[in-house]
């Protein structure tokens, strides 16, 4: 019989969507059965107590977790989130219930072999429960006790060749869309850049020396499948500088209805016959497409590479060949001064190993932020506080019209003394010779 009655949670076992309650119960049962005879290093009833404390929250509508103390592994300032239950007597199995963030492989491909290794380790030394994956991207080991942290870290690094991810005021675990591995639209190798920079900046990832957290995310194209523009202090988003490639035959096949539009994404509803004018040309935000003599034409100079036409006709239109990425900066959640999306900093840059140019931008930004950022001030907030101009100065990037959606509408322009003929040194008495009081 279950350790705790969970009538409320039990109601979440029905319904088609995978039930996390069933999953936790499965884990609980498995621990009690213990077929493999694992010598559990944390209480066998950890899952039962988790269900118990959660049921209590369902009943009283509040959380029963306290702030985490400072727990972690030696020499690292991140990778572990401490967590303690506020009713440890009722739920001793989860009295300590720290999470560990394990740095996921770029693009989140796995072999079953490797995943099983993770499972064995976590079954043995933790709750057996995970998040696959955390919002930042990590594999999240959900719940273990303080004394297991170093042990797990040791086994991870020695046996699995695997490091922890980030937490605290440091570089957070970078994440990317699957990019070139399985997407025809990827303008650079998102996985490689993510991996490369993760390795390059291991020190920044593990040892908090920043004013606050800092996130990298890598989207292969403007579709934004890893949502970098909303969730990363630096968003690397693929784009191209030359023309969209058109296969006119395939265009005709779309028009003729031989190929379903948008890769068949709307297949379950009758939207009527595909209408290239209505569905592509009229929706192009820059109005740079038209049909001429039965051919689709694009004025690529006016195209902003929004992806719409390509998304609708993947077999007819392909991204250009002169590929690279845009760097946008400053996205963050609303705390404190309101949410931000990332803002354009580098409209186009090549993404080629060893990525020196990209690293230069990163490091210039970090230098500035570490110098000027206040405690718990995200990059986006610093940019707002000191102005976009300071960001440009610190990165040595020239102001471009591409930096703005529109020029300023207030005329409160700062001029520097050097920019103004004669400088600012003036003499009031000289002035008063021509302008009496």
């Amino acid at each position, binding site marked *: 019989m279950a350790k705790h009655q969970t009538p409320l949670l039990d109601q979440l076992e029905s319904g088609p*969507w995978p039930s996390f309650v069933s999953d936790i119960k499965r884990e609980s049962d498995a621990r009690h059965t213990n077929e493999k005879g694992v010598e559990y290093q944390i209480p066998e009833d950890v899952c039962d107590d988790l269900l118990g404390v959660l049921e209590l929250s369902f009943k009283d*509508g509040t959380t029963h977790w306290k702030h985490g103390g400072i727990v972690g592994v030696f020499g690292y300032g991140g990778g572990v989130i401490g967590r303690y239950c506020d009713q440890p007597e009722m739920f001793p199995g989860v009295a300590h219930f720290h999470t560990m963030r394990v740095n996921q492989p770029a*693009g989140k491909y796995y072999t079953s072999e490797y995943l099983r290794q993770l499972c064995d380790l976590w079954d043995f030394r933790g709750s057996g429960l995970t998040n696959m994956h955390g919002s930042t991207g990590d594999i999240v080991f959900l719940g273990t006790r303080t004394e297991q942290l*170093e042990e797990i870290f040791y086994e991870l690094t020695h046996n699995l060749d695997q490091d922890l991810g980030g937490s605290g005021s440091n570089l957070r675990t970078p994440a990317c869309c699957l990019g070139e591995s399985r997407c025809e639209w990827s303008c650079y190798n998102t996985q490689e850049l993510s991996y490369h920079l993760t390795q390059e900046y291991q020190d920044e990832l593990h040892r908090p020396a920043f004013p606050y957290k800092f996130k990298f995310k890598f989207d292969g194209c403007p579709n934004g499948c890893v949502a970098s523009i909303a969730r990363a202090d630096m968003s690397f988003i693929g784009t191209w500088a030359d023309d969209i490639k058109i296969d006119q035959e395939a265009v005709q096949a779309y028009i003729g209805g031989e190929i379903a539009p948008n890769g068949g994404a709307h297949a379950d509803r009758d939207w009527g016959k595909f209408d290239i004018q209505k569905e592509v040309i009229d929706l192009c935000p820059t109005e740079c497409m038209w049909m001429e003599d039965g051919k689709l034409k694009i004025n690529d100079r006016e195209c902003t590479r929004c992806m719409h036409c390509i998304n609708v006709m993947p077999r007819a239109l392909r991204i250009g060949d002169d590929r690279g990425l845009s760097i946008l900066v400053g996205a963050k959640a609303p705390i404190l001064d309101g949410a931000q999306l990332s803002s354009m900093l580098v409209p186009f840059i090549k993404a080629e190993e060893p990525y020196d140019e990209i690293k230069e931008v990163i490091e210039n930004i970090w230098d500035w932020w570490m110098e000027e950022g206040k405690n718990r001030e995200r990059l986006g907030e610093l940019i707002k506080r000191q102005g976009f101009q300071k960001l440009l100065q610190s990165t040595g990037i020239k102001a471009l019209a591409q930096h703005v959606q529109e020029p300023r509408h207030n005329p409160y322009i700062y001029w520097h003394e050097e920019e103004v003929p004669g400088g600012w040194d003036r003499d009031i008495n000289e002035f008063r010779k021509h302008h009496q009081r």
Partner: protein
Amino acid sequence: MAFISSGYNPDKPMENRITDIGPRKYTDFLPPVIKNNFGKWAWHEIIEPGVLMHKADSGDEVYTVRCGAARLMGVHTIREICDIADKHCDGYLRFTTRNNVEFMVDSKDKVEPLKQDLASRKFDGGSYKFPIGGTGAGITNIVHTQGWVHCHTPATDASGPVKAVMDELFEEFQQMQLPAQVRISLACCLNMCGAVHCSDIAILGYHRKPPLVDDEYLDNLCEIPLAVAACPVGAVKPKKKEIVGEKGDTKTVKTVEVNDDRCMFCGNCYTMCPSLPLADQEGDGVVIMVGGKVSNRISAPKFSKVAVAFIPNEPPRWPKLCEAIHTILNAYKEGARKYERVGDWAERIGWERFFEVCGLDFSHHLIDDFRDPAYYTWRQTTNFKF
């Protein structure tokens, strides 16, 4: 249970220590068909809901079957995933950026057996383990956060409402009948770990009572200046108070005072100081935000807007929340044009009309009053619909 050492020696932590090795390299984990055609994909097709086919320049094909998952999963479920991968996919699999599981096979004939295998697996409680879907113009998995399972600041649970909403919208997960993709996210507090600020539909945990002040202990547990600085609206001030302690003794303590009328319940003070808890059964609940997006397709990425100021927590199945979301989704499904995201639809018909067609009340809570940019959300034109 006996402690078993990994080999780590607490007295000599640096002995044999391995650090800064980073993650495993992604190339170790790529299935052969992916590795062979890396960077050389030509096009793709969703051959049915949940099943993608990518065609390489070489002519190779990879078929991907995408399954929903409660991202909170135990190792036994993960091992089951591994079993499936071993059985059908040469031991390879991946997770998507929205916590779905993807099984890939290199030829079409392998798809059907894989699908059947997946669809046949259910939890004892009756729910699918691996429902197929989440592609194209439909609903996919809800990105979410910890909630009452692990965090100290939530105003709602995460896994619970997600399960309830996904059950409610399950049909839309398995079919592609919407005008465009609809991305739902949940964050259990304003920290917004789910980054719900740019979702088509966002569920956000929200407190509505100012923090309690644990006067007697505050000075021991918190750095008062940090707690004061944490408040974005300056509602927290240092204060000396005379109090009667737990044991009935009178003493003067250094603590803080909260100006309740200024507080907008963001919880940032509590993040910095455990002696300022906000959670409350009646006060807490969820906000629904709508119309955000992340892609640059046609229109620029945009923030979600608050559409429902508050819905109380109703565990275990949050019925009012589910109903409100379903109503919004249905209005969208009916009113939007092909390729039109929720936010673009609302802007086209006008937000006044959005509230009408969704049958939602508009209240003063929905008018921005946060700092200077609020002005830009008010209406500076005579153009409006009655």
